């Protein structure tokens, strides 16, 4: 992976988009085991229905994981300094999530080259699931 150069990054630049495979029920079970979040709303359809979602819903943190993947596909993880996400809509199996981002600011602080980007994860209907921001040191 080639680290983007601070001098070549401009405000408004897009981070390369990441298009994920459709979220699957098996993936939710895997993520439950990996993360330790065993809320049954993520793997028991009956619980998802009781909650009014018609079935299981994805862990918000899985979608934040997609955001982390998109960022670290673009810049090495050691350069990532802060990551913030807000969970705004639920994700269901079958949803195709695309992560996009955009540089909103750059500054030099304590001799460090900092970029700030906004980032969001949307489904196939452009419904935003997660919106947030990150800060990286290049």
């Amino acid at each position: 992976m080639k680290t983007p150069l601070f001098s070549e990054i401009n405000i408004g630049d897009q981070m390369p988009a990441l298009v994920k495979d459709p979220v699957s029920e098996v993936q939710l079970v895997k993520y439950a085991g990996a993360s330790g979040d065993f809320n049954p709303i993520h793997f028991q359809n009956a619980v998802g229905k009781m909650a009014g979602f018609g079935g299981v819903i994805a862990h918000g943190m899985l979608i934040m994981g997609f955001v982390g993947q998109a960022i670290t596909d673009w810049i090495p993880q050691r350069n990532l300094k802060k990551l913030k996400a807000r969970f705004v809509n639920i994700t269901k199996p079958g949803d195709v999530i695309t992560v996009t981002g955009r540089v909103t600011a750059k500054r030099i602080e304590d001799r460090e080259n900092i970029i700030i980007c906004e980032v969001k994860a949307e489904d196939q209907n452009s419904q935003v699931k997660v919106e947030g921001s990150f800060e990286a040191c290049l």
Partner: protein
Amino acid sequence: MEKSKLVGSSLPEFTFRVEKGKIREMALAIGDGKKIYTGTEEAKELGHRDVIAPPTFGLCIDLWGGPDFMEICRWLGLNPVKVLHGEQEFEYLGDICAGDEITVSTSLAGYTEKKSMHIFSIDSAYTAAGRGPVLKSRKTIIELQ
């Protein structure tokens, strides 16, 4: 109980050993195939001590190493079926690699009431044995009325 009185209270500290297989499991569940999460050699070539934890791994440390969701609900007096994860923040101070022993301290940093919501800000600080602070997190938990 007046929930705002809980601000400043904390959970018992705990220590979690980061295993290579746990990192791999998390990366595979996300569907992130980067070798830095599964290959020790590839991670070392990039200057890490071993495979590194992906950016959202802090949650895994919380849930596998610390008190479970029901204990958190008891701590804050929450109705478990009314709880949502509203926001999540991480600040990275160093890498977390397989083999690290991470000690976590967690406290309630803030509480606000908005319309029909109780909003809790829970802060955690993660320290690696022998290396110092590596991660900070803030979780915003919303309890609907």
